[in-house]
Structure formats: structure tokens, C-alpha cells
């Protein structure tokens, strides 16, 4: 199946172009601090209308993993992480650059990204089909519990107050319940405002939270002219002696990244943090971490690329996105009349394998183009903000307008941008809000369907071993969140008491 799909991708000019264009755009947005892959994918979504459905999805996937490659370039050369997932790369990568080993860092990062990106796709090819077969037996109870489990895991993994994270996710869910209820056909919670009848679309909100809010921050910062570092072509190919110690780190980072990618939340950035910590704990050269360790760069870059494959597993196997990037991909599928999930794998497996094959090809394109064109991609950083910011805002406005052809979405995008700035200033990530908007409709419809099917009996959630296990995991997650809140309250009370004593 995979071999046929690979042949189909390689022999199809439209799919090859889509993959190349996606990777190119992804690398450019990865280089630019500000506009991330989520906002770019959301932005490109309306423009894929004219493309063949598969080419559109391949292009969006290319942006997602291309951004992971691009983020490392500026982290290593300028200590400016283009993406949050490249934050850890900027520590050791930049130190290596200062020691005159930028070529080694860039090579290890590119090869690690390729190796682990391929590992992630291999993991996706092996894990998604059996998971999809299992999911065919899922009813609304199981989908409800998976949605709730996603929320509780997210609340505990995000850091900060678990209760606040959960509350943010609930607010996101409530936003999706404004407007037409698809089950009853009634309009709800419009507060008497006619423009709310259509409800809030996910894409303008996510473009505001992730794109406009970064642009507002960029506009407020002072002008900074970035000097582009020169890396000679010969430096990009280090000796085997330098590369050999990083091979194990690439493999470990790849495995850790894939596993973390399966979890709900900020898959790629979380994967890079976990991989850095795991590599440091297991390394024989701990003292080099933070001072220019090629192993650290290899592990982190491998992890964030492999996490992309992991994050696609729940989307392609279950049809449930656990991150904003995969939610935008889901919107892409739906715009083209496709619905990822167990049925897609059963009824049109060719489509699934073509997407997987395009990712193998895309990874090769990434490594072939990224290394020789490092200097060119780095030059994107020197575009002045007075050109960059208004251009991106204009493109965002066009993108938001074209979702439904209404100015309301453009205003929602701006409001979400302001909300994103306020949330970040108060130390709160906007991610739970975005995840809440993804899981809200799933939880709403599956809860009501479950209750109707069981004639109102709540014991239905314990009726079979799978739903009982999922219910148990959910309760455990909620209990852990409450325990976290109690611990936090005790700590704060102790701090307050110590303050009074002083």
C-alpha cells in the first residue's frame, strides 16, 4: 500500500508541487518569529479551495513539518527561536555558533529532523491503522470520554494552574455553543445579537490568538536590524567523528517526540522540552548541556519533528485533533469534503497512505533544500517589520474574510488577537482556549447522543470495559487537577504566612 502511494506521489506533479510549496512556506514561517504554522495553515486554508483535495492536505501538512525545520535555523544562528518548539535549540545551538560550529549545529539539526521526522511517519503508518480499527467499535460514550480525557490531560500538562487551564478550555467550548445547534436546529446563546447567529468559527479565532497577537507584540517592539551570519557551504558537512556521538540522541529524541506527540496539547514544544531533559539525564556529557552540546541540538530537533507524526495519529485514526495545528488540518479535510478517522482508513485507505507517503517525500525535500539554502532562509529575518507586519495583517484579514465571506470573522480575529496579548501578559497560554473550541462540539454532541441512546441512564459510561476504563482515567485526571489546586493553595498559604512572619 505504502509503496504504491509513494510511487503515486513521486509521479504526480501536483502532489510534488504541493509538498514542495508547503515545505517552503513552512520553512519561511518557521524562520520568522511571530507567524507560526497554526496561523499560516489557517491562513492558507481558504486558498486551497482551488486545489485538488489531496494536494491541499499535502500542502498544509508540508507547512506543519516544514516550520519545525525552519525554526531551528534562526535559533542556531541568532538565538531567535522562530517557533516555541525551537526554544531549547537556541540554547545549545547558539552556543555552538559562537564557538564557530554553526555548520555542525545546522547539519545535526537538519539530519536529526529528517531521521526523526521519518521515524514519526513510520510510527504513524504502523499505529494509525490498528487504532482506527479499534475506533470502529467506538460509540458516542467512548468519543465523549476521549474528549474529556483530552481536556484533563491538557489541564495537567500545560503548566500553571490546572484549574485555570480547565476553565480556559471550558470557555473555548462555550464559545462554540453560540449560534445554531446542529442537533435541535435551534439558535442558542446569541444574547439577542443577530450577527452571533452563525456562531464563532475556529479559524478566525486561532488566527487571532496565534497570528495577530504575535504581530501586535512585534509592532510594539523596537526595530531590530538582524545581521545575517554567513555559514560557508563546506562547514555544513562536518566529519563523521563529530556526527557519530549525536546518532543515539537523534534516535532517542525521535522516540520521545513521537510518544509525546500522541498526547493532547502543545505536542512539538512539549516534545522538545521532554527530550532535552531526558537527553541531559542520560548523557555522558552532562556538563556540555547549555554550553554548546551537539547531542542536545540533535535530541531537541529530532523530538519536535517526530512529534508531528505522533500528533497526526489521533487525527487520522480517530478523527479527533488534540492540538490547534491538527484542528486546522481537520478543517482542511472538511473543506474538501473529506473526514479523517476510522471510516477514512476503511473506505479510502489510498488517501491515508498518499498523505503518509507525501510526508516521507516532504521530509526528503526538507533536508535537500534546507541545508544548502540556510543562508537564504536566514535572510528572511532581515525583512523590516514596517513591511512584514502590515502585509501579514492584510493577508490575515483576507484569509479570515474568505472563511465565510463575512467581515464579522475579521473583527473576531482582531478581538482574538487582543485577547491573545492579554492572556500572554497574564502568563496564561491561549492553547486551552483553542483546544476547548476543538473539543466543544465533540463533547456536546456525543454527551447528548449518549444520554438519548441510554434513555438518560448515566451507568452507560461504565457499561463496557473500554468506556469504563476511559471513565476511570477521566476521573483520575480530574482528581489530579483538584489535588494540584489543593497543593497550590497550601503553597500559597505557606508563602503568605512566611511573608506575615517576616
Amino acid at each position, binding site marked *: 500500500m505504502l509503496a504504491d502511494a509513494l510511487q503515486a506521489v513521486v509521479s504526480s506533479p501536483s502532489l510534488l508541487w504541493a509538498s514542495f510549496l508547503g515545505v517552503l512556506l513552512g520553512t519561511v514561517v518557521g524562520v520568522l518569529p511571530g507567524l507560526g504554522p497554526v496561523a499560516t495553515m489557517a491562513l492558507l486554508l481558504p486558498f486551497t479551495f482551488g486545489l485538488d483535495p489531496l494536494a491541499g492536505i499535502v500542502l498544509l501538512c508540508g507547512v506543519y513539518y516544514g516550520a519545525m525545520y525552519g525554526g531551528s535555523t534562526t535559533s542556531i544562528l541568532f538565538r531567535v527561536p522562530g517557533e516555541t518548539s525551537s526554544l531549547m535549540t537556541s540554547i545549545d545551538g547558539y552556543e555552538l555558533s559562537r564557538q564557530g560550529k554553526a555548520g555542525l549545529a545546522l547539519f545535526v539539526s537538519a539530519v536529526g529532523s529528517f531521521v526523526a521526522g521519518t521515524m514519526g511517519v513510520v510510527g504513524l503508518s504502523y499505529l494509525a491503522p490498528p487504532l482506527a480499527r479499534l475506533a470502529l467499535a467506538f460509540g458516542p460514550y467512548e468519543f465523549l470520554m476521549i474528549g474529556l480525557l483530552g481536556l484533563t490531560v491538557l489541564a495537567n500538562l500545560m503548566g500553571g494552574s490546572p484549574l485555570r487551564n480547565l476553565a480556559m478550555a471550558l470557555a473555548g*467550548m462555550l464559545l462554540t455553543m453560540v449560534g445554531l445547534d446542529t442537533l435541535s436546529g435551534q439558535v442558542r446563546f446569541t444574547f439577542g445579537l443577530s450577527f452571533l447567529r452563525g456562531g464563532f468559527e475556529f479559524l478566525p479565532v486561532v488566527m487571532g490568538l496565534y497570528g495577530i497577537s504575535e504581530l501586535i507584540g512585534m509592532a510594539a517592539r523596537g526595530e531590530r536590524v538582524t545581521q545575517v551570519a554567513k555559514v560557508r557551504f563546506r562547514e555544513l558537512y562536518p566529519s563523521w567523528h563529530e556526527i557519530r556521538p549525536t546518532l543515539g540522541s537523534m534516535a532517542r529524541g525521535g522516540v520521545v517526540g513521537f510518544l509525546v506527540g500522541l498526547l493532547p496539547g502543545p505536542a512539538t514544544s512539549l516534545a522538545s522540552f521532554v527530550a532535552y531533559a531526558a537527553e541531559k539525564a542520560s548523557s555522558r556529557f552532562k556538563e556540555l548541556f547549555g554550553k554548546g552540546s551537539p547531542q542536545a541540538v540533535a535530541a531537541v530537533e529530532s523530538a519536535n519533528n517526530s512529534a508531528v507524526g505522533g500528533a497526526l495519529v489521533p487525527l487520522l485514526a480517530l478523527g479527533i485533533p488534540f492540538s490547534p495545528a491538527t484542528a486546522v488540518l481537520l478543517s482542511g479535510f472538511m473543506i474538501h469534503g473529506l473526514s479523517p478517522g476510522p471510516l477514512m482508513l476503511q473506505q479510502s485507505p489510498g488517501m491515508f497512505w498518499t498523505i503518509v507517503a507525501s510526508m516521507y517525500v516532504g521530509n526528503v525535500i526538507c533536508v535537500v533544500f534546507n541545508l544548502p539554502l540556510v543562508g537564504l532562509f536566514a535572510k528572511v529575518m532581515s525583512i523590516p517589520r514596517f513591511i512584514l507586519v502590515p502585509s501579514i495583517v492584510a493577508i490575515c484579514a483576507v484569509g479570515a474574510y474568505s472563511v465565510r465571506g463575512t467581515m464579522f470573522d475579521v473583527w473576531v480575529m482582531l478581538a482574538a488577537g487582543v485577547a491573545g496579548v492579554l492572556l500572554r501578559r497574564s*502568563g496564561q497560554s491561549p492553547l486551552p482556549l483553542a483546544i476547548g473550541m476543538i473539543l466543544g462540539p465533540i463533547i456536546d454532541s456525543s454527551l447528548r447522543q449518549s444520554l438519548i441512546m441510554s434513555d438518560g441512564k448515566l451507568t452507560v459510561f461504565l457499561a463496557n470495559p473500554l468506556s469504563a476504563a476511559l471513565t476511570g482515567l477521566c476521573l483520575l485526571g480530574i482528581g489530579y487537577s483538584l489535588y494540584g489546586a489543593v497543593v497550590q493553595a497550601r503553597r500559597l498559604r505557606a508563602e503568605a504566612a512566611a511573608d506575615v512572619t517576616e
Partner: protein
Amino acid sequence: MRRGMGVGLLLLVFGVAFISSARQYDFGTLASPGPAMVPVSLSILLFALQAVDLGVALLGRRGTGESGAGDAPRPREAKAGDGRTIFVLTTAGGFALTYLVGLPAAAGAYAAVSSRLLGLRAWWKSLAFGICLGVLVHYFGSVFQIAFPGGWLTGLIWG
């Protein structure tokens, strides 16, 4: 006000707004849930969680874990805050202009003004940039067959 508590209060108000408008919609029963059942349950949960979270924050000196309680903003932060406000207002102005002159022309005007605000010194360069961006947005719409809103003024001029 402590940082983080503002967001908490906003979430609390959000929950209350949903609860207060719930009476207009059918809640249903467990066997036949209405359209209001899930939103109302979620908003009650949101209210309860936020009440607990704010209570936890009030117990401590630093609110929800962030520092800077009641600190006066530093001059650099205040300057960045002004920059943010001006940028948001300019962007809102650009979007509002769409109703008058249509999206491509509004995008061009916005680009010209905001590029000046963001440090482009020569006015003619701002103008040229605005015209280029407006034309690009117009052709972008033509290529991707996006019907942009025309605007009241352009409608008056071009019919």
C-alpha cells in the same frame, strides 16, 4: 489588580453571562437533553472552577503564581503598551474602512498608515507600499475568486 486575576474575573463573568441567559432555552431531561443542557452545565462548572481558582489566588501573595502585583509599569513596558494600543486602533481603523472603500483599498490605506507608524520614514515609500499591497490584494481576490466587500463609497462612485 494582580496579574492573572483579571483573566479569572473575565472567565467568571463569561460563565455568569451564559447561566443568566440560559432560561430562554430548553434544558430538557436526561433522557431527552435540550440545546441548553451542555452549555449551562459547562458554564456552572466554569463558574465553580473560577471561584475556586480565584479563592486559591487570593490566599497567596502572588495571585496565580505571577509576580508584579500592583507594580507600576516600567517606562519601557508602558511604551510597549502604547505601541500595542496604537497598532490595534490603527488595525481596527483599517478594518472599519473596509465598509467605506472595500477590502483591497482599505488594505492599501492600512498598509500605508501602519508602515509609517512602524518606522518607514519616507511618506512616498509608504504610499507606494500601500498602493502595491492594495493592488496585490485585489488580484489575489480575483485569482482565488473571493468576492470582497465593495464598500459604500466605491459603490457610490462606480455604481
